[in-house]
């Protein structure tokens, strides 16, 4: 079975600085999808960025980018120019491309709580 591990329960960053959140996963599959979701205090779960395992190029969405290391099974999230509104729980998630049984189900890590200091 696949697992997702986020080893940093909490992180802190100064406003306008850069922070990197770590995520590792375990799988025997070669094709899959990885996601980062953000959950602010309002508790809404918001998709931040996605990465297809078959793509070597790291995904980027404005100030958010990932460092995808397939061999190392690592998928870190980098937030540049951090803003106060970035403060939230961040969840890393894995989804198999084996559609037969999972139907796109997500496997989540336990999350990293990010604080942004003014």
């Amino acid at each position, binding site marked *: 079975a696949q697992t997702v591990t986020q080893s940093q329960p909490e992180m802190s960053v100064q406003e306008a600085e850069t922070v990197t959140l770590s995520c590792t996963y375990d799988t025997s599959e070669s094709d899959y999808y990885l996601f980062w979701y953000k959950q602010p205090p309002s508790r809404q779960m*918001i998709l931040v960025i996605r990465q297809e395992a078959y793509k070597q190029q790291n995904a980027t969405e404005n100030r958010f980018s990932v460092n995808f290391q397939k061999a190392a099974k690592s998928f870190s999230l980098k937030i540049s120019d951090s803003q106060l509104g970035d403060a939230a729980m961040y*969840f890393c998630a894995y989804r198999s491309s084996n559609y037969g049984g999972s*139907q*796109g*189900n997500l496997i*989540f890590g336990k*999350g990293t709580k990010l604080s942004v200091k003014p």
Partner: protein
Amino acid sequence: SQTIHQWPATLVQPVGSPLSLECTVEGTSNPNLYWYRQAAGRGLQLLFYSVGIGQISSEVPQNLSASRPQDRQFILSSKKLLLSDSGFYLCAWSGGVEQPQHFGDGTRLSIL
């Protein structure tokens, strides 16, 4: 554009009472639908998913059940709530297995 609605936002129920949480999606047809539970300080745990009307798959044996009476409606139910059912419940939809999931605003359920 697609939207997902989930209600109620907050619910306080006594032990042993029934439960019904509703989730609806607008702007799409035949979505995959999901129910997750998030316990305090933990990640999300998938409870149920559905790929079509009347088709429900359960990921964890528990006190809860799910139903999909209409294409874009997904309901989470219980006949008798337990203290351990407390948590934050999130509904999600996706356009297909290759598409990302989009979440509702969640329901905070407290059992007394």
